[in-house]
């Protein structure tokens, strides 16, 4: 678990963090959402002590990080940044092996781990192991960055705008890879972004930052509720708050018993926003679930979910 307790920080005259308090439960993927200058990256960097708070505490697994040796602390936390920061003089495998080498792993263990990680992030080990970073595309480089962060199997992963520099298609591919890795490993992940779409695609919980303060924190649907804070409303097109809220809710959660023969079928993993758009598109007020003929979804259930 990561916990922020009354964290303050300032850069010169700028108040970067002001009394930030919230916790990220173990195994949760928490997205810190905010515009540039909101303090979101500064907050992330207090966890691995790249930034030392002026006041307040940051707890990792119940222990104040200020009491830990910074190098040992960082070797136990995965770290991924927007500009990737691969070491250009080392091969892909050499980059991934950075932390295992710092920890003194033997060669066989490091090599086995490197190959397993390349598989995990969706790169063929035989093809990519010996490549230089300069020969990789942006998406491939960030996959290597992710593998490097996961190398020593840290329980916590910090990701600072990891996909923001990638084109939309590549970004969706990496988001899918991250969701898969999170589901498979149960890591606690703190991910910073300015992109609400990305937050909705990834987050178990969302923390909204504005001007150094925590504006809201909770599940995506709760944060996007009728009481959504002004900074969050500014990130979306006016009038689309309810649609975004529906995009944060899985359609399966609003399903009712009973078949709906002949109704259009929703694919697995669809959200209520997908369901509503399908209804509008097909002129239907009932949908069935592909692969689950015993259940259906009605328009009324969507309306109830949209106005909690």
């Amino acid at each position, binding site marked *: 678990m990561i916990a922020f307790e009354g964290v303050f920080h300032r850069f010169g005259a700028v108040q970067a963090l002001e009394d930030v308090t919230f916790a990220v439960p173990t195994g949760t993927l928490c997205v810190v959402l905010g515009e540039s200058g909101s303090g979101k990256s500064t907050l992330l960097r207090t966890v691995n002590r790249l930034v030392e708070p002026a006041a307040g505490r940051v707890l990792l697994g119940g222990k104040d990080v200020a009491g830990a040796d910074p*190098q040992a602390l*960082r070797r136990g936390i995965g770290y991924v940044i927007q*500009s*990737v*920061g*691969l070491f250009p*003089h080392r091969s892909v495998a050499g980059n991934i092996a*950075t932390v295992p080498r*710092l920890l003194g792993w033997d060669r066989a263990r490091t090599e086995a781990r490197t190959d397993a990680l390349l598989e995990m992030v969706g790169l063929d080990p035989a093809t990519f192991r010996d*490549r230089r970073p300069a020969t990789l595309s942006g998406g491939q480089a960030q996959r290597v960055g992710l593998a490097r962060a996961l190398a020593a199997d840290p329980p916590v992963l910090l990701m600072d705008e990891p996909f923001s520099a990638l084109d939309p298609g590549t970004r969706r591919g990496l988001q899918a890879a991250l969701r898969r890795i999170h589901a498979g490993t149960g890591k606690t992940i703190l991910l910073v972004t300015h992109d609400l779409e990305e937050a909705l695609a990834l987050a178990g919980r969302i923390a909204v930052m504005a001007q150094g303060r925590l504006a809201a924190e909770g599940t995506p649907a709760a944060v996007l509720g009728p009481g959504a804070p002004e900074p969050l409303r500014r990130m979306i097109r006016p009038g689309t708050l309810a649609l975004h809220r529906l995009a944060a809710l899985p359609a399966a959660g609003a399903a009712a018993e009973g078949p709906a023969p002949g109704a259009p079928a929703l694919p697995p993993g669809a959200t209520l926003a997908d369901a509503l758009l399908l209804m509008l598109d097909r002129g239907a007020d009932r949908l069935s679930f592909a692969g689950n003929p015993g259940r259906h979804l009605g328009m009324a259930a969507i309306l109830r979910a949209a106005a909690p």
Partner: protein
Amino acid sequence: MRRRATLLALEALAFLAALWAAPRAGALWHALFPEVARPTYLQDPWFALLGSHLALSLGAVAIAAAIGLPAGILATRPGGRRLRPVLDAAFSLAQGLPPVAAIALALPLLGFGTAPTLLALVLYAALPFLRAAVSGLEAVPPAALDAATGLGMSPWQRLWEVELPLARPVLLSGLRLAVTLSVATTAVGAVAGAPCLGTPIVTGLANANPSYVLQGALFTAWLALLLDRALALLAAPLAPGEAP
């Protein structure tokens, strides 16, 4: 790359052959300088002059590196940044002092021979190392530094494993400049009596023997150019994907 290396090796052989031939080429020197009574330099064996020239100039480069590189590293650390203008001014001043003047000033303290020459050369060659270290280390991508720190490298590990390897091309070009400067400048050591390829030049000047001057100048310049190109080969950028 391989072809350039082969050509350079052949040229080095030609240089050594010319050095061997110089005392045996009396006919050539007579033809070039018919008015000079004894145009062939026979006072010292050329290979002994070459050996002491290299020892002196490369020894000075090693000492200059041992001073200039740590100073450059210090000037790029968070705690040492304030020292940077001071270090730069001190090293620039040291290089600004002409080596002949440095030798003259050092003579009363260090006497004749190798010691004042070595001092003058070190003063002259330290600045390229400081400048190369500072600009090479400053050019390391900030993202690589952020990643290195964030992954848990100590400041020393970051320096050894990330910063210095990435600064390597710039450091090598600094080394190349220092070697070329030092090898070309070592000749002035002959003024203080340090045996080197400059000895025939000084002897020739003292005895109005332009043939000696030509022979000394020829081999000094050739040696400097040879080493310059050898180091250029070493510093050549690696092709993408090529291991260092």
